[in-house]
């Protein structure tokens, strides 16, 4: 019995374990889940042998737990940093308690400079803190900006009945247009265009003063992330837009998923503090054009001044956690010196097949 690095040959057992623990029926879908895990944790450009995914290998039972891992190159005040992003942590409840805790302890002691996760349950949060990690308090607060009050109300009632598809258009849309008028976002200045990952990387390089600790995506990494969102549990259309000022200067960008009468999820909003107002206005206006009932995201220090002027309210969300052995680095991250978004976390990193009718649908999309 030991904790060791995840290998390709472990993936079928890991997929079956995940399905069993989560209560998913993967008949006919196991291969799709295996492919997804392989892309996330072994073959994709954000899989990193220096910060590997781990399995708990019980000699007799086989794989009884695993933790998926990705890494991100970051730029820091004193040079490059390696961020580890803890993905799904799965342990077989029939194999006894504590396997998840051992996996997490081993993972946090890896070669990375700091570790994050943002989809944590209360139990993981308590374990994380006991292992020396910290809560990223600001990012553990969710925000929402209402766009269509009738759609939100009906959607909430439907979710309580276990119906997750957006309500049908018709009377609801009419009510939203009439009652929701005051909530419609202001028309922003400037223009938007599809986000070119290379442009985003260049913009990030110029944001050192605003974000001393920021992603330094390498070749193809941001593009892979944007493409990968299509295969995740993220619902609706994934849009990534660069925002330019009226004179053409690139201000920043946003990445969101949005569906008519559904919840638009802000996955990444990047701009210098002085430009956040315009970028967020474009985000809200774009979500409204798509017909989203509300926009949700997590609170990030650079967004807060703009959000507080734009009728946002806070909502419950999962724990966002961070760990670093270097106290100064940890202090800087928790103090708002790092650009950390959902795109560089676990939030979107959910197995795709539960959102699809079967594995054939996934093949057809890819």
């Amino acid at each position, binding site marked *: *019995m*030991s*904790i060791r690095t995840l290998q390709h040959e472990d993936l079928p057992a890991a997929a079956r374990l995940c399905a069993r623990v989560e209560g998913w029926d993967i008949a006919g879908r196991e291969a799709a889940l295996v492919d997804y895990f392989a892309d996330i944790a072994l073959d994709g450009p954000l899989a990193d042998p220096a910060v590997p995914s781990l399995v*708990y290998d019980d000699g007799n039972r086989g794989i009884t737990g695993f933790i998926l891992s990705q890494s991100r190159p970051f730029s820091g005040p004193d040079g490059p940093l390696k961020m580890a992003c803890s993905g799904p942590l799965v342990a077989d409840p029939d*194999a*006894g*308690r*504590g*396997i*998840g*805790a*051992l996996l*997490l*302890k*081993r993972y946090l*002691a890896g070669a990375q400079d700091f570790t994050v996760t943002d989809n944590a349950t209360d*139990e993981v949060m*308590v*374990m994380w803190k*006991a*292992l020396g990690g910290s809560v990223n308090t600001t990012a553990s607060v969710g925000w929402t900006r209402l766009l269509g009050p009738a759609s939100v109300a009906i959607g909430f009632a439907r979710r309580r009945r276990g119906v997750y598809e957006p309500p049908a258009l018709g009377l609801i849309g009419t009510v939203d247009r009439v009652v929701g008028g005051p909530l419609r976002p202001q028309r922003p200045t400037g223009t938007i265009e599809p986000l070119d990952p290379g442009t985003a990387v260049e913009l990030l390089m110029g944001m050192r003063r605003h974000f001393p600790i920021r992603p330094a995506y390498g070749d193809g990494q941001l593009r892979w992330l944007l493409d990968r969102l299509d295969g995740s549990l993220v619902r609706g259309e994934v849009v990534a837009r660069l925002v330019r000022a009226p004179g053409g200067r690139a201000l920043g960008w946003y990445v969101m998923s949005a569906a008519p009468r559904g919840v638009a999820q802000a996955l990444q909003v990047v701009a210098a503090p002085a430009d956040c107002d315009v970028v967020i206005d474009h985000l809200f206006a774009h979500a409204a054009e798509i017909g989203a009932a509300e926009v949700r995201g997590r609170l990030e220090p650079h967004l807060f001044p703009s959000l507080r002027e734009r009728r946002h309210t806070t909502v419950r969300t999962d724990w966002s956690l961070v760990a670093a052995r270097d106290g100064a680095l940890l202090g800087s991250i928790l103090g708002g010196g790092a650009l950390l978004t959902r795109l560089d976390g676990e939030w979107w990193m959910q197995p795709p097949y539960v959102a699809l009718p079967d594995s054939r649908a996934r093949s057809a999309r890819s």
Partner: protein
Amino acid sequence: MSSSDPAARVRALLREALQIEVDRDDQDLLEEGLLDSLGLVSLITELEREFGFELALDTLDIDDFRSVERIVARVASESEAAPL
């Protein structure tokens, strides 16, 4: 904890840090639900503090924390590198 008997030190640690009273040294703490995931993390932290070692991460085995006698055996093996 002043006892030089490792088993006594582990029992005292379980009692004082985790409020776990064990009846026998072979009592299965995991099977009987006395030790959950958080308790295990706390136990490891306390063992490292009490016995002055850092657990070898490449040989983490859940069974090593299943009972007082297994914990004592694990402590002994760790202490070969760093004597108690």
